[in-house]
């Protein structure tokens, strides 16, 4: 009856197993929610950049030249006049191109920043120029608290107020551009009998088609901007402790 002196293999003790189990399940849902907002943010900004770019390009390439033959009675002759319609003819369209270019520039910058914040959730020093740009325009107490040394502790959601401010202003600018171009295009399509403004689109069909599609795309861009602001507000409100 030899004593069995087997080396008992060390079994994992129960407390160790319990300690190992909770942390992964506890961390998963908040990260998933954060990632959902961040991914949606990046996607929306990219779409906004695409829409702004398309609108600007379509409006800029809308030049149409037409040769008009005019018959003069005395002396009897034919005169060939070439007249062109381009977007520079109306100040509203010039403002449209300018405003949508600004929107596209803002969109591409914030897409890159949001993408970087998505990749590196803990620390993103690239946020600093972002804050610097917005500090020139807005000076909020929250910015002063979040600036400089504490930059690494900022997650994406904390820069929401600054971005939200700029996004609303940009929404106003893009909506004004859409409205202005839409108003002038409407007069060009339908004319105005009371002020005797003749309709232009009967003659310059291709120009009008370009302008109309650019305005439609900019309506889509303003809807995207509104969705972006609502998304950031929603992500803020989710964090409110109840």
């Amino acid at each position, binding site marked *: 009856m030899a004593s069995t002196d087997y080396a008992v293999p060390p079994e994992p003790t129960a407390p160790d197993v319990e300690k190992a189990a909770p942390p992964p399940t506890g961390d998963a849902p908040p990260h998933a929610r954060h990632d959902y907002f961040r991914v949606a943010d990046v996607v929306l900004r990219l779409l906004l950049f695409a829409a702004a770019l398309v609108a600007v390009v379509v409006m800029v390439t809308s030049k149409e030249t037409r040769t008009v033959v005019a018959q003069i009675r005395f002396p009897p002759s034919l005169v060939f006049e070439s007249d062109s319609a381009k977007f520079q003819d109306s100040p509203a369209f010039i403002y449209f191109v300018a405003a949508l270019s600004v929107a596209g520039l803002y969109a591409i910058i914030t897409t890159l920043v949001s993408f970087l914040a998505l990749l590196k959730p803990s620390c993103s020093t690239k946020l600093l120029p972002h804050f610097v740009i917005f500090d020139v325009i807005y000076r909020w107490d929250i910015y002063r608290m979040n600036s400089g040394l504490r930059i690494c502790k900022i997650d994406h959601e904390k820069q929401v107020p600054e971005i939200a401010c700029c996004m609303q202003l940009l929404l106003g600018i893009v909506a004004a*551009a859409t409205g202005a171009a839409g*108003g002038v295009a409407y007069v060009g399509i339908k004319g105005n009998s*009371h*002020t005797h403004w003749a309709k*232009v689109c009967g003659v310059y069909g291709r120009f009008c088609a370009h302008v109309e599609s650019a305005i439609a795309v900019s309506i889509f861009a303003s809807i995207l901007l509104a969705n972006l602001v609502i998304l950031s507000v929603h992500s803020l409100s989710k964090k409110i402790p109840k």
Partner: protein
Amino acid sequence: MDGVEGKSGGSVREEASSGKKSGVTRAARSLELVLRVVGMGFSLVAAVMVGVDKETEVVAITVVDTLPPLHVSLTAKWCYMSAFVYFVVANAIACFYAAVSLVALSLMSTKKTTQNGLTLALLILDLVMVALLFSANGAAVAVGLIGLHGNSHANWKKVCNVFKTFCRYTTAGFAMSMMGSFVFLWLVLLGTLSLHKKSR
């Protein structure tokens, strides 16, 4: 001893911060109410100014050089221009919305419930109003500029040299509406800021 002191100090600090927080919230809420009243006023004034504006002028039109000019009386009204119609309608909607939100806020503030749903809905509607007002402003100002300067490329003649009073009134209306749309923008900023403070 130290633990007790620390606890009492902590509770005093908590009370002070919560007092400051509720003070800030009360200030923010009263500012929001004031902004809504101001926004309602601006959009109402703008809509009324452009809507009531009417001018009749006798214009001499020469059809043919040989005949004497015809004197035609022309009227300038807001409803003759679709951009102005959009402007008046948008400002009326904004004014109505400001009034309704004022009533809703003042009713809700008497109850002691958390107003998260209402605040969020009002914020989103404020944003929609900002976009609507800005686009109406842009359209009206663009068409007004055509009326002021004319457009040589499209052969659209300027109108404001004839209808001076009409143009002056509509310009004042556009200025009022511009200020009203900035008030709505401030409302959205205020709402976002207060949400941010609540979420810390």
